C-alpha cells in the first residue's frame, strides 16, 4: 500500500491519496470541525463505453444506456436493497452515471463507518434477475421521457449529435425506451464483470472522517485481488 499526503500550506488543508493493495485508489480528505461526511465509490465506466468482451470472444456492442441501467440495478439485492439499508443509518444515498463514469455516494452526519460498509458492500454484490430488470425498464423509461421534456438537455444532445458523428458521447446517457428493452440480467452481469473491478475504481471520502477509519472498513470489506 502506498500513501501520499497532498498538502497546501497556504490553505492549511491536506488530503491523502492511497493505492490500496486491492487495486482500489482511495482519496481521503479529513475536514476538522465538520459534522457531515461524504463518500463516493465510482468506476471508470460510463455511457461512452459501448463494448464489452466476454472471455475468449470478440468484443460485442452493448445497448445504449446499459451503464446507467446497471447503476439503478446495483441498489437491488437478494435481501434488503441499498436504500433500505441506508434507511437504517439515516444517510442520504444516491448515484449517477455520466459519459465516462458511474458513481455511488452517500452523505451522512452519523455512523460514517457503517455507511461506508454498506456502500462498498452493495456495489460489490450485484444481484439481477430478469423480473427486476423488467421492473426497472418502467422506471427508467419514465426517466428518459422526463429528460425528453427538458429543453436544455435536448439542446445539449442535439449539439453532440451534430458535432460527433461516430463518437458515443452523442448517445443519451439513459439510452432510449427501445434500447433499454434489449437489456437482460445476463448482460448486466457481463458488464459488471467487465468494468467493476477494483483496479478500475476509486473511492473518495471527505468530511468528518480519518484515513484510519476509511482503511479499517476498506481492508475488511473490499474483495481481495
Amino acid at each position, binding site marked *: 500500500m502506498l500513501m501520499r499526503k497532498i498538502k497546501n500550506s497556504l490553505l492549511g488543508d491536506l488530503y491523502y491519496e492511497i493505492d490500496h493493495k486491492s487495486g482500489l485508489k482511495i482519496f481521503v480528505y479529513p475536514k476538522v470541525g465538520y459534522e*457531515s461526511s461524504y463518500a463516493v465509490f465510482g468506476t471508470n465506466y460510463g455511457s461512452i463505453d459501448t463494448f464489452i468482451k466476454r472471455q475468449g470472444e470478440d468484443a460485442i456492442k452493448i445497448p445504449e444506456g446499459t451503464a446507467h441501467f446497471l447503476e439503478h440495478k446495483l441498489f437491488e439485492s437478494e435481501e434488503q436493497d441499498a436504500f433500505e439499508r441506508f*434507511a437504517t443509518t439515516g444517510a442520504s444515498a444516491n448515484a449517477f452515471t455520466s459519459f465516462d463514469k458511474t458513481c455511488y455516494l452517500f452523505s451522512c452526519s452519523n455512523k460514517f463507518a457503517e455507511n461506508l460498509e454498506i456502500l462498498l458492500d452493495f456495489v460489490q454484490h450485484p444481484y439481477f434477475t430478469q423480473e427486476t430488470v423488467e421492473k426497472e425498464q418502467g422506471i427508467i423509461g419514465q426517466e428518459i421521457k422526463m429528460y425528453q421534456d427538458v429543453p436544455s438537455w435536448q439542446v445539449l444532445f442535439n449539439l453532440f449529435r451534430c458535432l460527433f458523428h461516430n463518437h458515443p458521447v452523442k448517445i443519451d446517457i439513459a439510452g432510449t425506451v427501445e434500447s433499454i428493452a434489449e437489456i437482460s440480467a445476463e448482460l448486466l452481469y457481463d458488464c459488471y464483470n467487465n468494468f467493476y473491478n477494483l483496479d478500475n475504481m476509486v473511492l473518495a471520502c471527505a468530511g468528518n472522517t480519518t484515513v484510519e477509519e476509511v482503511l479499517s472498513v476498506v481492508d475488511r470489506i473490499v474483495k481481495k485481488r
Partner: protein
Amino acid sequence: MQNIFKVLNVAEGVRICSYNTTQFKTGRLSINLAIPMCTNVAPFAILPYLLARSSKGYPSLMLLNKKLEELYGASLSSGLGKHGDNLILSIKMSMVDDRFALSGENIFAECAELLFDIVFNPNILDDAFILSELEVEKRLMVERIEGEMSDKRIYALNQMEEYMFEGDLYGNNIYGTIGSVLMLDGKTVYEAYKKVLETALITVNVVGSVNSQAIADLFLEKIEKINRHSVMQPKTKVISSAVSVKEKCETLAVKQGKLVMGFRLGMTEKMDNKSRMKINAMVNIFGGSTYSRLFMNVREKLSLCYYCSARARLTKGIMIVQSGVEDENISVAKEEILHQLKDMANGNVTDEDIEKYKLFVKDTCGGICDSPVSIDAWMRDQIVEPSFETPNERLEHSLAVTKEDVIAAAKAVTLDTVYMLKGDNTDADA
C-alpha cells in the same frame, strides 16, 4: 457547535443573523427583504436582479465585476422566493475568508460596503432606474418566466398552485407575468424600491470569521437614513382543510405526463414549531425520501414513475405531491398516492417508520452547519418567523414526534387540487 448562531434585533423589522466560525474558507453575506405578496409583483420581483447589476459607486456591470475580481473573485447573486404569503428578495455574496487575504485586507468588510452600496445607492437618475439597465433585466426576467414554462416539471407545479390558490395571492407567480414585466418603467420600479426599503422585514445574514457587530453598525448607519414606516407584519392565510376536490387536466406537446396534487394539512396560522414538526414527520414518511411510502410503492413496487415525492410548505399549511408518469397511468398513480395516505391515516405507521424518520432528520440537521450557503439559507428561511430556531432546536422537536402524532397528522390531510398534464399525441420534436 450550533450555539454560535446569534440574532440581533437592531431596529424595528431589522435583524442581523450571524454565525461566527473559522471553519470555512469562504464567508457568506446576504441581505434579505420580505414584503407581502401583492397583485402586481413585477416591480418588486425585478429588484434583486436590477440592483445587483450596477450602483452609483459601480455604475456598470463591468465596473461591478471588476470590483468583485479585486475582492479575490467574490461572487454576487440574486434570489427570489416565496415564504407563506410573503415574497423574499435576496442579494447574496460569497467571498474568501479574511485570514487568506494576501496583504491582510478586510475582504468581508469591503464586501459589506459593496453590498450595502448596491442596496442603498442604486443606479438611478431623477427618481427612476436607468432605462438601459432596466431593459436588460426586463428581458432576462421574461426569459426566466419563459424558461419556467419550458420546464414542464416547474410548469406543472406552477399551474397547480395557480389553480389551487385561485383568488389567493399565494397562487401568483413570484416573477410576475410576462405582460406585467414588459410594462415596467424606471419610475414604477423606483417607487417599488423605496417601498421595499421603507416597509420590508429585513434580515442581514453574516457567516464567517467576522465581527458581526461591525457589520451591524455599518448596516444601521445606512438604514437609519431611510424613512422606515409601516413595517410589514408577516401574515399568511392558512386554510385548514379542503371542502371539495378541484381537478384540472391540460394537454400539451409533452412526452411525459405530470401529476401534481395539492393537499391541505389541517394546520392553523398559529401552530408552534413543535406541532409543525409532527406534520413534517408525516410528510417525510409519506413522500420525503427514498424510504418513504411514495418512493417504495409508486416507484419501486409499481414502477409507475421515476420520481414521486411529497413536500410540505408548513407556513402555508399545504403539501404538494409531484410525479412524472405515462399519460395512461396518471389515474393509477393518483389512486395509489391516495391509498398510501389513507393507509397511514388508518394507523398503518410502524415504529420502524418513525425510527427511520428520526435517523434521517438527525442526519440532515447535522449537515446544515457544514456549509456557509446552507447556514445562510437556514437563516433566510426564518425571515418571517417571529422567533429564530436553530437546527438543534428543530432536531429536538423532530425527535419528540411519536407514531400517534404521525397518524393524527395523516388523518388531518385533505386533497384540494389535482392538476394533470398530458401529451397531445403529436410528436413534440416536430
